[in-house]
């Protein structure tokens, strides 16, 4: 069987990339073409219209696509989680200097951000923050970050969407004052000297359901070999002894095309947060493998709640049930003969 699988070049595409590059799919008798997509919208539409047989997808976008509130309504299933966490909120150095938080804990930093944001509103020049897609954990994590400081994101901040590969440059050029993005783009902004990581995603929304494997529903019954292959690859990605190899695999120009050192730091959860070299460690910075794999309908509830609070949907009972139903722990179990 030959499959076309889509991904957006980010560290958390690792299980899909490793599944193919390390031979896990071949071992299941699958020939896979990995297709790098330039935007989430393109990936979503190609999956919806059958140009892709599966995809690495933002968990909220998979749900929005299934509910028909982003692109064409798509009958898709989520038989496997790919990753938890991995995002961070980064602000420009001038904004960080203005925030000047007195301590390094999340609440202090969030309050310092809120204070500056309100000041800007009062002067008629609200801060602008970047996210990667309306239906993303990044959007919800920015909202949570604002709320921790007592700020109403809708009222006090301008939110814009910028694709991950452009977001660091948008910060450098002053087009935005901060952003929430996945690895490695926060580290790129820090390494190049114009960004300061203000908060880790894993502190804003612990064990946040970040990326999932989304498949067309009609392929669900024959998906066991693919689920097994990507599941094994996820475990392989989680094992620290494989991180060196994984980093060079991901850093390859054919995939992310960035410094493998930045990838390794993210995998290890030892992230440089300030251009002065300050490092912060987080054991659960980005999670693959055992902890991320099981598709949990509880994730659908959490995402739907975030969508509602962002004003993206007022879910009916039927929509809430539909959202839960796209998560398929039964397919996950069946792939392993349970």
């Amino acid at each position, binding site marked *: 069987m030959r499959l076309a699988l889509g991904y957006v070049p980010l560290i958390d595409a690792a299980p899909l990339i490793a599944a193919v590059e390390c031979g896990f799919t071949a071992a299941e008798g699958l020939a896979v073409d990995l297709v790098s997509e*330039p*935007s*989430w*919208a*393109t990936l979503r*539409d*190609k999956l919806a*219209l059958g*140009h892709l047989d599966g995809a690495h997808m933002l968990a909220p976008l998979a749900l929005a696509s299934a509910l*028909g*509130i*982003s*692109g*064409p*309504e798509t009958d898709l299933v989520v038989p496997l989680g790919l990753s938890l966490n991995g995002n961070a909120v980064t602000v420009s150095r001038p904004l960080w200097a203005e925030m000047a938080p007195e301590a390094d804990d999340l609440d202090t930093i969030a309050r310092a951000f809120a204070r500056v944001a309100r000041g800007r509103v009062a002067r008629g020049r609200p801060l602008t923050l970047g*996210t*990667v*897609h*309306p*239906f993303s954990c990044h*959007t919800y994590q920015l909202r949570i970050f604002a709320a921790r400081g007592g700020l109403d*994101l*809708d009222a006090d901040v*301008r*939110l*814009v*969407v*910028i*694709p991950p*590969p*452009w977001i660091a*440059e*948008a910060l450098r050029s002053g*087009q935005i004052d901060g952003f929430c993005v996945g690895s490695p783009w926060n580290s790129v902004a820090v390494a190049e000297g114009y960004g300061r990581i203000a908060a880790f995603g894993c502190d804003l929304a612990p064990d946040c359901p970040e990326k999932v494997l989304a498949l067309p529903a009609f392929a669900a019954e024959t998906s066991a070999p693919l689920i097994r292959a990507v599941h094994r690859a996820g475990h392989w990605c989680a094992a620290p002894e494989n991180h060196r190899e994984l980093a060079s695999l991901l850093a390859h120009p054919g995939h992310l095309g960035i410094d493998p050192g930045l990838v390794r730091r993210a995998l290890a959860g030892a992230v440089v947060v300030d251009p002065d070299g300050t490092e912060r460690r987080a054991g659960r910075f980005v999670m693959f493998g055992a902890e991320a794999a099981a598709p949990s309908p509880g994730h659908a509830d959490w995402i739907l709640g975030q969508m509602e609070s*962002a*004003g*993206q949907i007022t879910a009916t009972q039927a929509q809430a049930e539909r959202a839960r139903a796209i998560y398929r722990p039964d397919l996950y179990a069946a792939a392993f003969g349970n």
Partner: protein
Amino acid sequence: MTEPTLTVAVIDPSRARAAILEEGLTAAGFTRVVVLPDTADLPARVAALNPDVVVIHLESPSRDILEQMSGLSRHVERPVAMFVDRSDVPMMQAAMDAGISAYVVDGLQPQRIRSILDVAILRFNAFARLQRELSEARGELADRKLIERAKGILMTAKGLSEEEAYRTMRRKAMNEKRKIADIARAIVTAADLLG
């Protein structure tokens, strides 16, 4: 049919393709067609232009930027929804095969958008065909040069006339069920190595 009142924005990473689409839409009677650059400041440009329809290449990273206008927050500058009537799957397939996506302001009549999409699909497919033909033509030209070189090598090495050299290669190609250009490539490679 003229559509004097519609403003159409065209966004495409390929300038040539954008120009071809612009020309096609203008020829079809759309008087206000504006090509916007494919950059991160798109929302401001779109807001300033205030188009009725945005036609954007399927593979443009800017699509995610445009989508914020339909659901990012309650503070949208302009409501934009992805076109293509969701029940019209053949149209969506045709648009995707051609590499097109389109966004429209809610409330615009579907048949008016359809005529824009029809033009866009025709133009994009024609562009793809031209590119294919161009790359085939380049390939043929390269093959012809290769065959000329191989002919020259055979003429010198074996004292053949031009006609005899060509026939020798053609016979070899037929016997081995290969293309004459492949035989020529082998001769040129061998001559490079041996000479």
